[in-house]
């Protein structure tokens, strides 16, 4: 598929273009996973505490 290869080569700028999109993808995905994971931890922590003001 010459068209796909041409697309992936990005006119010789493949390294720069794909690094930019890849880096953005990684940073955005991490920023979704980390807070959701943290929320789960907080919920479990609170649920595991003995009742104090009951």
């Amino acid at each position, binding site marked *: 598929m010459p068209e796909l290869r041409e*697309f992936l080569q990005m006119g010789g700028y493949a390294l720069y273009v794909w690094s*930019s999109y890849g880096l*953005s993808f990684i*940073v955005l995905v991490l920023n979704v996973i980390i807070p959701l994971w943290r929320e789960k931890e907080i919920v479990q922590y609170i649920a595991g505490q003995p009742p104090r003001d009951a």
Partner: protein
Amino acid sequence: MFTAISQYAAPKNFFTLSRRLAPVFGWTSLALMIAGAYGGLVVAPPDYQQGESVRIIYVHVPSAWMSLFVYVVMAAAGAAGLIWRVKVMDAIARGSAPLGASFTFLALATGSLWGKPMWGAWWVWDARLTSELILLFLYLGYMALQSAIEDPRVAARAGAILALIGLVNIPIIHYSVEWWSTLHQGPTVTKIGAPSIHISMLVPLLIMALAWMCYYFAMVLVRARCELLLLERNTAWARELTARRAVT
């Protein structure tokens, strides 16, 4: 109207609102990102001078815009927390910092990846790049301050003051390309009069910018509700909500 909005100043109501709104913004953002990336990588034409490397702007420019927008939100929410002592505002300010730092990092990194082939250098100490780097340090300084102070109220107050002082950097970043002769190009979209960017490039750029905006709204809602949950861990509503979720 005011009571309709102000009821969300109560942490419990904000928490419920966040649970409902964050997925809406999140999925909207994902759809826009796919459309914007397709538009930017496939549909939009290569630049007559920069060739295919111009496609980097579709992630660079939204990140740079959001790095400024998030900072203004962070400072405004911090100020509102400082003045009216609304916990939700403090949580929004605190939740914005890592997102703003991420956008700033992306703006710098993707700019660098564009600068190497186009300017022949990964980095130059021009006014735009330097002031954006200072913005990254402001975000990191804010986050360091937050984790260094144990009392959440003192941390919020100190953070708000830092954010407000750092606000002076925002117009400097924005106007740096006009005030000083920078290697970084001047504005093309927000220029007075018609934007000097072709519609075929402008449309994917604006779609990506909207995607980044929705992404920020989704994730700041999640981060802020985490902060509130931790802050209110001993209240009845927090226990009730977490007990229900821990079982299911």
